[in-house]
C-alpha cells in the first residue's frame, strides 16, 4: 500500500477549527503551533491504537473493539475522555442503526439480483465490518493484513 506522507496527517482546516473552538475567543494560534498539534494528534492515534491493540491481543482477538479503545484511554490517563466518548458512541450507534436498516434493505435486493456472497472472513464483529463497507469512502475490505 503506497501512502504519501501527508496521508498520515489530519486535515489542517479541521484541526484548526477544533483548536479555535477549544480556546477562548480571539486567541492567536501560530501556524507552527497548529502544525505541531496536528502532528501530536497523529501520534496520539498511533499511541492509542498500539495501546488498544495490546488489550485486544491479551483477549486473543484480532479485531480492535470499542472496549479496547476505552481501556486504552484509561491506560493513557485520559479518563476525562471516557464519559464524553460513551455519550458520543451512543449517538453514533443510533445513527448507524438507521443506516444499517437502509443498507440491509439494499443488500437484500442486490443479493437477489446477482446472488453473490459477501461473507467476510473474520469470525467476530462481522456486522460492523459490513457496515464499514457502507461508508461513504470506498475502502478496501478489512481482511487485508499487510501494511
Amino acid at each position, binding site marked *: 500500500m503506497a501512502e504519501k506522507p501527508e496521508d498520515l496527517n489530519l486535515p489542517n482546516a479541521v484541526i484548526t477549527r*477544533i*483548536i479555535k473552538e477549544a480556546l477562548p475567543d480571539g*486567541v492567536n494560534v501560530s501556524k507552527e503551533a497548529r502544525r505541531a498539534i496536528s502532528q501530536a494528534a*497523529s501520534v496520539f492515534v*498511533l499511541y492509542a491504537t498500539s495501546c488498544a491493540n495490546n488489550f485486544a491481543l491479551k483477549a486473543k482477538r484480532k479485531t480492535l473493539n*470499542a472496549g479496547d479503545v476505552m481501556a486504552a484511554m484509561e491506560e493513557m490517563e485520559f479518563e476525562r475522555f471516557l464519559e464524553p466518548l460513551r455519550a458520543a458512541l451512543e449517538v*453514533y450507534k443510533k*445513527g448507524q442503526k438507521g443506516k444499517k436498516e437502509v443498507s440491509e434493505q439494499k443488500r437484500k435486493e442486490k443479493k437477489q439480483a446477482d446472488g453473490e456472497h459477501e461473507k467476510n472472513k473474520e469470525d467476530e464483529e462481522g456486522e*460492523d465490518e459490513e457496515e464499514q463497507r457502507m461508508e461513504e469512502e470506498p475502502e478496501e475490505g*478489512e481482511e487485508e493484513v499487510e501494511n
Partner: protein
Amino acid sequence: LSGENLAKKTISLPISRVRLIMKSSPDVSSINQDALFLTTKATELFVQHLALSSFNNGCGKETNSLSYSDLAKTAEESETFHFLTDILPKKILARDYLKSLEQMQEEDADF
C-alpha cells in the same frame, strides 16, 4: 435519517484518515467500526485538551496567543502529554547549542 445526521455531527475529523493512521500501526489486523469512531472522537478531545492545557499553562496567556513553545513546555511538564516530548522538543538558541557542543568536545579532549 435525522439520527444519521446527528451522529455525523458528533465528529469533524474524517474517519477514513484516522483509519489510515491506525492501519499503519504494526500488528493491527482489523478495527471494528465503533473502535474507529471512538478513536476519531478521542483524537478530537485530545486536540482540545492539548490546546487548552498548553494555553493555560504557557507563556502566551499574557499576549493572548498560543505558540509552539507553549506546547513544548506542556509536553515536558505534564505527565499525560509526556509521550509527545520527542515530536515537540524544546527549542534552544543556536548559540547555546554551539556552546554546549564546545563543552562536550572539551570533555572528550580530556580522555
